[in-house]
């Protein structure tokens, strides 16, 4: 099998979710990814839930496994001078570096972008940080919550008489990982042509803010500041509507004409002229909403979803992890891959394929590494460190290792 990024060498100096996810995506396309971790403790994502608590402390995180397959791990303390020759060799043998330290941190250890580019002039350095490398918020501390708050997404989410609402789980970091990955490949492609390296400065905050193309147009073309959702929402704007079992979400404007709902539910009211166009329906939101709620209250969401979608109605249903893990469509598409891991003695189904490439499909080629698992393979076999060099690193860098 061919891989699109076969032969591309990635050095993953990052930690947490966003940077490691970006580096892993490059690995999925075939890049050779070496992950550098802090000796002893490793990437802090090694302690992020969900945890398999009977494994060794640094190997419990199943989320870490998801974020770090297709990588090999070496523990190296970047703060120590003795690491410098090794890191230099690694940089000289890389095409892309992904890092997520606070702005200025790498430089404080003697690894400014200028230094890295001096060692390797065609190198791509991708920094993925909360607010980017520059500007008044560059050093702001952030969480998924504060990033979503400051991005504009929460101002338009939730109910107008309640507090603004965020997306669940840790969406910011996955968004930034997706962006950081493509921006890295993009810069690599550019460097392949002109032989100049690049520093890609990704802001997680801006990744989220760049989603607000509609909301920003309300202000930019009309001066209208969009607020949260109405107490009684237009039922065709995606708000989950309770069915007997589960919830449905409806939209209009594509697929089938509106009257198709009359056919789906056996209710001629949907053919009435007063509901015929969006402006008319917008004037009768409570009425049309009550009608729709009545139509679904005695049916199961999935049954209505399948029937409605087959009639080309824009319809969705709220699905949980369990629903997704057992979805006939996802199974047919082979969206999940089973990845076994000896450290946790698990073999879980992970979401493995984002898009299907006809010639160079993505692949989970190796499970996530245990901390420092590939020390000998990378430092000795690949970089050619001799016994003395290796020993000096060991002694100084990893006393508790």
């Amino acid at each position, binding site marked *: 099998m061919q891989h699109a990024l076969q032969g591309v060498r990635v050095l993953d100096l990052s930690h947490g979710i966003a940077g490691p996810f970006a580096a892993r995506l490059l690995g999925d396309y075939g890049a050779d990814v070496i992950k550098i971790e802090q000796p002893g403790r490793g990437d802090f994502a090694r302690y992020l839930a969900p945890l398999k608590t009977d494994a060794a402390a640094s190997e419990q995180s199943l989320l870490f496994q998801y974020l770090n397959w297709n990588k090999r791990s070496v523990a190296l303390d970047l703060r120590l001078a003795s690491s410098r020759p090794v890191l230099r060799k690694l940089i000289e043998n890389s095409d892309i570096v992904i890092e997520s330290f606070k702005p200025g941190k790498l430089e404080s250890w003697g690894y400014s972008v200028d230094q890295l580019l001096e060692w390797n002039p065609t190198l791509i350095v991708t920094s993925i940080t909360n607010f980017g490398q520059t500007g008044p918020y560059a050093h702001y501390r952030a969480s998924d919550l504060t990033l979503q708050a400051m991005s504009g997404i929460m101002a338009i989410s939730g109910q107008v008489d309640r507090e603004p609402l965020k997306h*669940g789980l840790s969406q910011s970091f996955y968004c930034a990982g997706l962006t950081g990955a493509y921006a890295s490949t993009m810069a690599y492609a550019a460097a392949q042509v002109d032989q100049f390296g690049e520093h890609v400065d990704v802001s997680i905050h*801006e990744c989220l803010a760049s989603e607000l193309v509609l909301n920003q147009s309300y202000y930019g073309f009309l001066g209208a500041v969009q607020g949260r959702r109405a107490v009684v929402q237009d039922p065709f704007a995606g708000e989950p509507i309770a069915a007997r079992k589960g919830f449905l979400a409806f939209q209009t404007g594509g697929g089938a004409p509106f009257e198709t709902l009359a056919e789906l539910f056996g209710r001629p009211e949907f053919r009435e002229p007063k509901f015929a166009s969006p402006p008319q329906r917008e004037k009768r939101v409570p009425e049309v909403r009550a009608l729709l709620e009545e139509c679904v209250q005695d049916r199961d969401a999935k049954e209505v979803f399948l029937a409605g979608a087959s009639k080309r109605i824009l319809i969705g249903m*709220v699905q949980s992890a369990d629903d997704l893990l057992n979805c006939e469509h996802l199974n047919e598409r082979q969206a999940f891959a089973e990845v076994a891991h000896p450290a946790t003695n698990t073999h879980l189904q992970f979401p493995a394929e984002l898009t299907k490439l006809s010639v160079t499909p993505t692949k989970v080629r190796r499970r996530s590494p245990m901390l420092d698992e590939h020390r000998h393979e990378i430092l000795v076999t690949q970089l050619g460190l001799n016994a003395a060099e290796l020993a000096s690193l060991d002694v100084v860098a990893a006393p508790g290792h």
Partner: protein
Amino acid sequence: MEKKKTLPLDGVRVLDLSYVFAVPYMAGLLSDLGAEVIKIEAPHKLDQTRGRAFGPYLDNDPAQDSWNRSGIFYVVNRGKRSLALDLGQEKGQEIFRDLVRKSDIVLENYTPRVMRKWGLNYDELKKIKPSLIMLSNTGYGSSGPWSAFPSQGTTLEATMGVTFYTGYEGDKPWKVGQSYPDFIACWAGMNALWAAIVHMRKTGEGQWIDCGMYQLGLSLIPEALIQKQLDGTDRPRIGNEDLEHVPSNLYRASGNDQWIALTVDSDERWSKLATLMGQPALAQDKRYATAAARRAHRVEINTLVSAWTASREVTDLTRLLQAHDIASGPVLNSKDLFINEHLQHRGFYERVEHPTPIGPRPIIGRPYRLRFRDAHIKKPGPRFGEDNDAILRDILGMTPEQIAEVKTNKVVCDLPTNPGISGTMDTDMMLRLGTLSAVDKNYRSIMGVDL
């Protein structure tokens, strides 16, 4: 001779057949990165972003040519040229194939049967351009039992799993943001495109990318998928709070509808917050001193923190909390963002000069800066069919007579043949409902783009 830094898509031509957000945005970004992007629009079916469903029309006035006045269209479709071409006609398909011969990338998001019906699916196009990269974005992908289902981002957000884990505590699932899956598809598609570009430049070989938006949702909720398999439980909906860190929530600040977000992620930071709140004893209080204890007292902690934030302004709170290394920031709205000091400093919005009547506007750029390469929005989004003549003449070498003929036969159109209804947004009603919080008449001067 000095080497010259290039944009990665200098000299690359992209044909963009897509509608609405995900793929049009992808194509807009490709234009920022150097590509010549031709948006091919159907004369009888406007991109929804040119229409009433999204809007808004410039100053809420659809005027005579509403399709050229929709704000969202200009954000997503910046940098492109427009060719209004009827692919349902044989001559339209022939023109398209001629363009494919002179292009590198095709992007589309029709349901799978449409391109096949026109004989313009990848297997056919590859025959005339073996190095062609084509991306097809659909709701459910090209295969599997649901592949023919129609979809848009809003309903997909529910189906793909994100909605189940989003919402106020104890309440039903909630939709959040705007068409979230479209942006995920945009970025995931960009990943696939760039991988395909690298492969093509190395081998000369093109390929087809089958992007099904539904399955992208899985990649965003690994915590929930893993938890379910680990112990059979579901991650709870907990509003804005965090399973692990307490406090991590929104708190009301002084002023009208002002909210501060803050996250305390260590005992040390809890101690700092307690001191800032003027209650240093809370740091030693057994009920709150450790992360586990704070998780058991969420309600009390939320009450304590809200009492402190309620009389303070969000900017003061942010400055104070950040000075003590506590993650925090205000809920910003669309106006706040346009005038935000950080985004201005970063150049996140780019000033784009549109022809009258729109004039200059700040348009969202890209969420990353390149240090050595000048990625930027090259030109405003196109008016409908704006580049018809130039494209037919300059790229395909058609004569004025040939161009006149395809226009007579409505293969190429200068005006939409079925523009649909236009109309104004009922801003008064929206202000009453609260779905708009303000309408600023002087918004141009607030944004600094007075004509």
